[in-house]
């Protein structure tokens, strides 16, 4: 069976290299055919457009009867991808896996996951909340992440070279400044506001007292 696994992986890599149209690439990590890195472009008409995303791929021993293990190496701001670890929540990587699926088709599925998030089955609850409350603010943040982590085009003209912590957290600069002015540390303010999902219409429903309470904890 080990032969079959190697034969299959080699064929998959070769097929993928032959196929230029899909723009999906698979490369070996340290000459090991069972540990790979796949990359694909962010889908057009999404906040991920223009970025190039890489995915860590580990082929398990019982591949292709067990699903491949994949996680994002590039940081992605997406409800179904952990913003911290890159872990992915996608059915075909779990129970819906079929031995017929290939590395290329799985990477393409990841690409389409970026087009159509499933906020009701989130991997990252905070990001999912952001997505649900304020789509435009979410898109801004996702675009900013694409810019700074995935090499996407600058989101706004004149955005600085330096990474903007407030934009990474998907918050409004004015809000952070407001609480920082009360004497709290900037990083703590960002942390608390992000956790409370202080965005969009939520701004009206979260009282300042509650934020200050959380800041004092």
């Amino acid at each position: 069976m080990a032969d079959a696994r190697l034969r299959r992986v080699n064929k998959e890599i070769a097929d993928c290299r032959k196929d230029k149209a899909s723009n999906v690439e698979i490369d070996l990590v340290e000459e090991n055919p069972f540990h790979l890195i796949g990359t694909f472009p962010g889908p057009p008409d999404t906040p991920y457009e223009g970025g190039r995303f890489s995915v860590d791929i580990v082929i398990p021993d019982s591949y292709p009867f067990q699903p491949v293990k994949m996680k994002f190496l590039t940081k992605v701001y997406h409800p179904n991808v952990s913003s911290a670890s890159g872990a992915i929540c996608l059915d075909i990587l779990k129970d819906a896996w079929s031995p017929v699926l290939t590395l290329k088709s799985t990477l393409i599925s990841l690409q389409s996951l970026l087009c159509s998030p499933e906020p009701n089955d989130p991997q990252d609850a905070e990001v999912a909340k952001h997505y649900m409350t304020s789509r435009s603010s979410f898109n801004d943040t996702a675009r900013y992440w694409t810019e700074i982590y995935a090499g996407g085009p600058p989101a706004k003209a004149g955005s600085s070279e330096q990474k903007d912590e407030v934009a990474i957290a998907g918050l409004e600069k004015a809000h952070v400044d407001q609480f920082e002015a009360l004497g709290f540390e900037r990083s703590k303010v960002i942390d608390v506001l992000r956790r409370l999902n202080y965005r969009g219409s939520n701004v009206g429903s979260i009282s300042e007292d509650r934020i200050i309470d959380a800041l004092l904890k």
Partner: protein
Amino acid sequence: MSDYMSEESDGEYYYDDDEVMGSDRAEDEDTEESEGEEADYGSMEMSVTALSKPKKKVYEVDYECLATSDIDKSMAKEAELLCSMLGVDISTSYQLLRFMNWNKEKLIDKFMEDPDAVKEKAGIADTPPKFTLPSVAPPPAPAPAPVASSSSSNSRRTTRSSNKTAAPPPPVVDEGWSCPICCCEPEPPTGVMALECNHAFCTDCWQTYLTGKIREEGEHSIRCMESGCNDLVSDTVILGTVPDAPKEGSVVLDDETKDKFKELLVRFFVQCNSALRFCPAPGCDYTVQCAAASTKSSLETTVPTVRCTNGHSFCFGCGEEGDHRPLICTIAKLWLKKCQDDSETANWIKTNTKECPKCHSTIEKNGGCNHMTCKKCKNEFCWVCMGPWSEHGNAWYSCNRYEEKEGVDARDAQSKSRASLERYLHYYNRWANHEQSARLSLDLYAKTEKKMQEMQETSELTWIQVQFAKKAVDEVIKCRMTLKWTYAMGYYLEKSNQKELFEDNQRDLEKAVEALSELLERPIEPETVASLRQQITDKTVYVLKRNEVMLEDTANGFLEGRWAWNTSISPFIE
């Protein structure tokens, strides 16, 4: 009529199984030997009273222990019934039932509404059923279970040869075809298989796939390997009983995997049926059927303790091994969880900490002098007497002011706040004590065995006459089990007259058990052995009666709704 025919052939076929099923049953059914076969097969609801005692006590339930072959028969019976009702073949019938979690009524409803939709959802290939009813099938009638050995598949083959539904035609593949999974190129047509959906893969891949699904993932309904394809792999393919299967190019799984698959089928059936439960003992494959305890509400008033043919006793309601009478499942579970979570912590808190006399924060003293300053409320007090430090003056390193009023008050307050902890530990320690004793039961048996030997050597007593000692040990162990759970029950009972009566019973039983235990520890002396025997025998009978009283009273209490639970538990009941 079809039923009758299969019944007969079944009886014959399963005869062997019955023989090995265990002596218990064989003995008990001696009297009905002549009609045994038929009655045995008869129905799932057969009222075998063989295992229950002639007069049922209020704390006992009616139940029956079934072997795997009995479950097979029940499954087969349901599947066959569906066969004739829905006009599908046996393998499809099994798969439809599994798809509906063996809910026959629901399946019939849905199927009558729209058979194609049900079949499609279940993943059964849409080939027109050319099924021949068992009643018109030439004898021998089809053996029902795919879960059967080669003899049944033979008989099925003869009846099914006209019926192509289970034998997929070999897939048509072009020259140079390669398996999309392993990329091998088997010489067509050998080594290639497809289900009715025509997704062809090499048989090696099928074998690996099926083996993995069955052995590692424990799946009993396996779909085609193609992504998104809903087609089920039929039982006949997995068990290698496809009629007219070509020698080459068919999937052959090893026997271990097939057995595992059959086991999965049985397990799933048992799981779907609330009146059935597997014996939880490792390696035991008996199933207990207990209709009386199949509903949630029945468990609020009864503790269905059952014993499988191998002698493993367990609770039918919650699957807990052993016997948690008299306490009902929900509360027993609550108690076990509490013990798991709390007992260690509670004991540690009790021995290593005190509470600040002012703000009641729990404090661990991990060094330093006795002059304590509470981190939280800044209260200064003495660790030894718990009184305020201000009264201590300069006697900093020793406290000789134990009797000072303030200190006494502080200690009183402390003990009050610890009352609930103490209360819990009171019950827990007694519970644990009986638990520990029960765990040592093996030792006790060994010791008793030795004593019985000794008695036979040193006195006139014969083997049969010394059996009283073993009987006494049996009883002691049983009663300790009851006692153990009465402490869990006592913890949750609200203080009332009923609880007092309960505790009286508990005390009587405990006293009797301890007395009997002590008698069993007595040294054997030739002169006194006869009187000791008398004493132990009497005591055993007394203990047995006390245990019955305890169990009966608590069981009646549940039925009458006599027990009032304290606040810590009320949200969990009802």
